[in-house]
């Protein structure tokens, strides 16, 4: 019986195949892997979400 880790590995492995050399974007002198680009985009998205999404405090918005 395959372990949970193996099943999860197979599932994600079928979605994102990492078994090959990395893909890179070339923009002038800038060279960056798609992996790093995705992380940077995610950081910007989370940063904007942290600013825009209201924070519900324990006191129900006591200010």
């Amino acid at each position, binding site marked *: 019986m395959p372990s949970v880790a193996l099943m999860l590995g197979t599932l994600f492995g079928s979605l994102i195949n990492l078994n090959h050399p990395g893909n890179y974007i070339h923009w002038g002198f800038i060279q960056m892997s798609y992996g790093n680009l995705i*992380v940077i985009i995610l*950081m910007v998205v989370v*940063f904007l979400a942290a600013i825009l999404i209201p924070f519900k*405090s324990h006191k129900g918005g*006591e200010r």
Partner: protein
Amino acid sequence: MTIVDPKTGRPDQADLDKAAGRPEDADQWTAKIRNRAVEALPPQKLLPDRQPAYVASWIYVFGVTTIAALIVVIGTGFVLALFGPNWWHVSSTGLFVNSLHLWSVEIFMFAMVIHLWGKFFMAAWRGRRKATWITGIVSFLVSVGAAFTGYLSQQNFDSQWISTQAKDGINSTGAGAIFNVTNFGQMLMWHIVLLPLCIVAIVGIHVLMVRLRGVVTPFPAKGETPGGEAAAVATSGAEVQA
């Protein structure tokens, strides 16, 4: 023992004298250091139950997220150090702990960068908070070094590739002879002894500085006079539960 005078928010002198022990001991360096520490950071200030109202925003969450991730990084690092490379490369539990170590570092760096952006756009060095800002920047730079030496300590083809690529870069700075990235023993010692000690010490000072100077107040809203509402909130005691 009141520790903090509710009117002034400062420790009561009588309590400080009492904490110093016998009156004849008050001049000793131990009593002086203890008194100064209690005066600067009384327990309520060191571990507060409430935060100023303006802290009720998601952008203030990323500092503590970074520290939470750091705790997991150090915990999993301890386990990896206990069993060694054969374990973390071969056994399924070892691979799992190795992955936890990697992904907690990913979260650590991710949260730290968002924390850095948030504090940069808030100009968090305002109000005598320069030391807080500088210790934050230094901890970021040291963390980059710790992550780098971690990649070199993986004991796989990836670490070989990274070290040989980095060797040229470090050599070009003139530091290649002292900091030899192809020397596994040296890189491992930097990764598991020197840099973690530096990070924990700098982050510790950073957190103490945040407690000492408080969380930076937001910029005043458009049309509001500088030091208006935000300053009033900071000093009026309008707070929310932490």
